[in-house]
């Protein structure tokens, strides 16, 4: 066991933390931007006007059929072409993540709304509420509650997927650990700590959802 050098983790902690910061930034931007765009897409898909619903449905179908790596590559080369100037790997990765995740958030939001029984809307309408009130007071809160586990699951997937940004030469947490592992010949130590960190973060997140679901609503 003496051949292991666990101290390397502490010595390289700042480098790893830097990678984690990039992963965190990607998760936050992909989730926030993806949710906003996802709500817009979900509303468009629900619309009875086909010039809104058809493009939204097409967008979601296409995005969900492509691997994220491809979308990352695509925007890495496409965004500079469209803008006529280089934008850097980080900006193109952020755009790619937001546009890719929006398609998944759109479907989660739609599933959440669909999970609320039609009778709930009828009951609320029958008391004289207007459509906007029905959504805000009855359908929205129930849909959100149904969505939380799916949303969190998606955020965990985004977190794990941030490791793909190595293809556009960005250094996320996983890539940083991999660099150290190769450079110093310490794969066991580095990949062990990577596994532990991913596990702790994802496990606590799903525990948090479990607790949330047990607490009755406001």
């Amino acid at each position: 066991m003496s051949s292991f050098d666990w101290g390397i983790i502490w010595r390289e902690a700042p480098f790893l933390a830097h990678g984690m910061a990039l992963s965190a930034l990607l998760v936050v931007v992909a989730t926030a931007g993806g949710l906003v765009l996802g709500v817009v897409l979900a509303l468009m898909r629900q619309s009875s006007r086909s010039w809104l619903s058809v493009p939204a449905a097409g967008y979601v179908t296409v995005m969900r059929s492509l691997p994220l790596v491809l979308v990352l590559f695509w925007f890495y080369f496409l965004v500079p072409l469209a803008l006529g100037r280089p934008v850097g790997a980080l900006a193109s990765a952020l755009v790619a993540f937001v546009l890719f995740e929006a398609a998944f958030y759109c479907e989660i939001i739609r599933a959440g709304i669909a999970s609320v029984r039609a009778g709930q809307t009828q009951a609320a309408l029958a008391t004289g509420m207007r459509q906007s009130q029905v959504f805000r007071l009855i359908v929205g809160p129930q849909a959100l509650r149904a969505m939380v586990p799916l949303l969190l699951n998606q955020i965990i997937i985004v977190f794990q997927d941030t490791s793909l940004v190595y293809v556009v030469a960005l250094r996320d947490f996983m890539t940083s650990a991999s660099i150290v592992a190769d450079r110093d010949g310490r794969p066991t130590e580095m990949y062990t700590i990577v596994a532990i960190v991913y596990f702790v973060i994802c496990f606590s997140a799903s525990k948090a959802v479990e607790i949330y679901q047990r607490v009755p609503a406001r």
Partner: protein
Amino acid sequence: MIEISDVSKSYGRTAVLRGCTAAVKRGEVVVVCGPSGSGKSTLIKCVNGLVPFDSGAIRVDGVSVGDKATDLPALRARIGMVFQNFELYPHMTALQNVSLAQIHVLKRSRTEADTKSRQLLARVGLADKLASRPDQLSGGQQQRVSIARALAMDPQAMLFDEPTSALDPEMVNEVLEVMQALALDGMTMMVVTHEMGFAQRVADRVLFMDGGEILEDTPKAAFFAHPSTDRARQFLAKVLSH
């Protein structure tokens, strides 16, 4: 109070209502019965505009339901409705369920609304269940909360869409008793139900529907003594044999 004239509706090629005409006068209790799929629920949901109809007219308290210019939310606020599956809001307590529309539709203050809700929940025998959530209540209790929720709006009429059909048999009576008390108070009621005992005790008139048509519109005594159509006779023979 409720006037239904020549109302028809179809889903695609299936006609669910064919030329229905009926009226419920102020203070009257009208029971609508008939085999499943006869259009009873559709008809009662047309009355407050939850289901749009294709032709004919419905007027509630003089207001035309099918008219595009009608403020349907304002009209619905004056007509209470109770559903087969209760449809209480699962994310709220019994008290919040009853107070919600008072606050957001009638613009009552929370204190005022909660006071009214407490009175109504006590009236339906649930004074000790104010803080319970729907999933902590039995079906009969949930349906009584939903009656209180409708009454909280001070409705001019109440619509009941099979209010006891989803209940276990031992809970049917507690709901029927609340409805009977309402009828005795003079509430205008239109009730879709298979509970012929309730119809015999409480109804003024019985509408019998089959195949989307109102085949009978008869005072209660006459309906049970000698229904004028064969289909009504067969229906009664079936439901009264249990």
